């Protein structure tokens, strides 16, 4: 504020502060990967091996940078040091977000009622937290084994194993992230703070643009505010200076589209990719999504007329949702793989380059199938196994199907909690809103108690050590 009359000095101070924040982040999060890259994989063990990543460094760094930029722009109303420190270090958001914006949180921190006990907020927070805990421990963690089986042996993963691995990973990351977001929102609510929505059933998205409006929503917003918009603005100014068009008509020309849409989109998504982790595979993940978004924008801009979502049929909508999901699935292969090479190996498995694998059937079913069963056995499509292995396999597949039904057919946590304004912003009602609408009554107390109980029970791990299968 004191530097406001001297804009150059203010910009210099801002740049220095951001560089310091980013320097700390790069040192802790990317130093090892950079050294590995520069030394051809050997790394410098003495230097980087002892770097311990501080908990939540990405989140508090981004929160601080956002605050600094907003402060320069004069958008920060509350400036108290205590509130600022509380805003940055408020623990619920540090592990998996959401990325907080000072305009949403700081005003809540100055309210005296925030510091008073509220049984209503505690009960709402507990309910949201328990949904998150179950999603994380019971849904996401149970996918771990099939994910490891595929991604851990990508070079030999058969068609079935590879598809099961990537579908399981799609569920694992969905419920993991959704669960963490719910737990953060629930914990904050117990302390009378309402967080912004961070996860809004992204697999229900009918386009990639919509997917990013639903997936890690606060990261998308952050990147739009502090990366995409400034970059797009700079490009616009540059075009304006050259007397090139900047309106909708200019965007609909190949040159205008490439500079005003593709460049900022791909750049922003590349950064988003690297933000998720150090490694080429994360960059490729970001580039793929940059490409998807560009194609999606091209369809929006160049297509002569569009049918509104309300007018398009349910089947068409479902097809779009499925297409979006499949596109996201392809990018997720890179996100989860240990390297770019491993990602291509798994993709090879997904198209059957490593064989198709065999479905296991117990002897009793094979004998009932008679000659067909023998033929299937001979061709290697099925494999004889014990009844227990068969049940185990069927249960595993059934669990994946059940989780997809939950993903696509059920309301999300915010929709269940709709009546109690669980997050900042507007929430669209979901399916089964009559039955699956939380209220502080005995039935929900039992249900939430049971969910918390399941969550605590599954903290010891959901996989059993078995020397001998049943």
């Amino acid at each position, binding site marked *: 504020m004191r530097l406001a009359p001297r804009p150059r000095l203010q910009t210099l101070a801002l740049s220095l502060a951001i560089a310091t924040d980013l320097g700390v982040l790069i040192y802790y999060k990317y130093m090892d990967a950079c050294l590995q890259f520069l030394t051809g994989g050997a790394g410098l063990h003495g230097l980087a091996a002892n770097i311990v990543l501080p908990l939540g460094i990405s989140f508090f760094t981004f929160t601080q940078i956002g605050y600094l930029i907003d402060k320069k722009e004069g958008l920060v109303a509350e400036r108290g040091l205590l509130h600022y420190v509380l805003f940055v270090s408020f623990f619920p958001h540090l592990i998996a977000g959401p990325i907080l914006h000072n305009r949403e949180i700081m005003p809540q921190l100055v309210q005296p009622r925030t510091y008073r006990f509220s049984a209503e907020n505690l009960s709402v927070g507990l309910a949201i937290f328990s949904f998150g805990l179950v999603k994380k421990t019971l849904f996401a963690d149970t996918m771990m084994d099939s994910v490891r089986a595929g991604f851990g042996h990508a070079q030999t993963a058969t068609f079935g194993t590879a598809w099961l691995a990537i579908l399981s990973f799609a569920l694992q990351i969905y419920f993991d992230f959704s669960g963490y977001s719910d737990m953060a929102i629930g914990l904050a609510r117990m302390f009378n703070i309402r967080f912004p929505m961070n996860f809004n059933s992204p697999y229900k998205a009918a386009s990639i643009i919509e997917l990013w409006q639903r997936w890690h929503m606060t990261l998308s917003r952050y990147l739009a505010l502090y990366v995409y918009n400034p970059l797009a603005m700079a490009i616009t100014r540059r075009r304006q200076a050259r007397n090139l068009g900047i309106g909708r008509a200019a965007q609909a020309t190949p040159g205008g589209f490439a500079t005003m849409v593709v460049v900022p989109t791909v750049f922003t998504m590349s950064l988003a990719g690297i933000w998720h982790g150090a490694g080429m595979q994360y960059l490729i993940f970001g580039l793929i999504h940059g490409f998807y978004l560009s194609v999606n924008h091209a369809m929006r801009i160049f297509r002569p007329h569009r049918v509104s979502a309300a007018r398009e049929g349910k089947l068409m909508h479902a097809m779009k949702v499925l297409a979006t999901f499949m596109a996201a699935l392809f990018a997720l292969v890179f996100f989860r793989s240990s390297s770019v090479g491993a990602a291509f190996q798994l993709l090879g498995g997904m198209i059957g380059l490593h064989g198709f694998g065999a479905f296991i059937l117990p002897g009793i079913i094979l004998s009932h199938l008679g000659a067909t069963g023998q033929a299937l056995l001979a061709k290697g499509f099925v494999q004889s196994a014990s009844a227990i292995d068969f049940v185990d396999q069927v249960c595993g597949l059934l669990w994946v199907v059940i989780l997809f039904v939950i993903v696509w057919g059920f309301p999300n946590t915010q929709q269940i909690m709709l009546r109690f304004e669980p997050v900042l912003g507007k929430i669209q009602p979901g399916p089964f809103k009559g039955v699956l609408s939380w209220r502080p009554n005995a039935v929900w107390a039992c249900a939430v*108690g049971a969910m918390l*109980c399941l969550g605590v029970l599954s903290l010891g791990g959901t996989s059993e050590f078995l020397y*001998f299968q049943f």
Partner: protein
Amino acid sequence: MKLAVRFFESRAAVAGDSEAVARRYIGFLALAFVGIFGLVWLYTASLPMAFLSRDYPAWLAKRSMIESCDLGQVAVFGDSRTMAGIEPNLLPLGGANLAFSGSSPIEAYFAVQRMLLCKTLPKTVVLAFSVGGFMSDTNYWRSSARVGIVNFAAMRDVQRESRRLHDDEMLHLTDGEHLTPLLSEALMAARFPSFYFGSLIDGFGFGRYLYNKRMEGKILSARGEALFGTDAGSHDLASETELSHFTPSPVVNYYFRSILAEMAKRDVPVVLLSMPINDATCQVMDPSLRPALLAYLHQAIAADPRATMVGPTMPCWPNRFFGDGFHLNAAGAERYTATVARWLQPAEPQSAAAAALVVER
């Protein structure tokens, strides 16, 4: 339930205060949580037979043989290879197979401690552990503590010795369960349900009861022997192929030597065996493992004239005798037991017949 809902809502409606409703809700939630969790805990503590894996009835069978001092003349301790490969019913001297899957000399030491309560001890104690069993005890928390092979007092003892030897392998639970040692031991001993959640799911809550009861009887009648893999042959690789060198774990070494010392104190001869491994594993295994294990075992029994090593170390057997990568199948077990029977035939290991059979000493 309906009554509870009516009570809850009517009181809340009368109060007309969202804070009062919320307070009542939290109370009810706490009650529900404690009630459900308590019931599950009661279940896991009182009926492990209904959901734990076969390890549990196997341990019950062995514990019952030890507690009734029904051990015969030869007591065999070891890991799952030993459990599958030595059939006491085929030993002319009679005996009990007290080997346990995934166990190391740590678990064997505490089983021996239980055995020492018997008035009459077996004439010979056989110890047969895989090379990896001397290097670590990765299944201590995952299996032995959960099943109950090591009780609270035993766990405390292991912690004490681990600290004394600065061997931190046993100091913490695996799988990120970062609890303090005392707390984790107390919770394990009390069958805290979170440790059994995987088993509860895999066992469908109570789906293993009949199977486990049957297994307990079967293992008892087989005097502790139980097969693992049942294939007619296996060329799968065993874990020896993942080892590049042999380094004994300090805490495992301590308990191994403690067993030898206890037996020497009571003048009970100890025979060390090395279970066969399949040809497939032999071909890939690091050649330095065998001489290193042999030297270690020689050193361990050097001061004890009543302890002997019989048979070759880590002998390679044809793949057809293996039911999976690790364990002998029925044919393999029968053949190996016959071999062991010949080795153990003389009453005294120092006899001429035994000396002829002692391949390495």
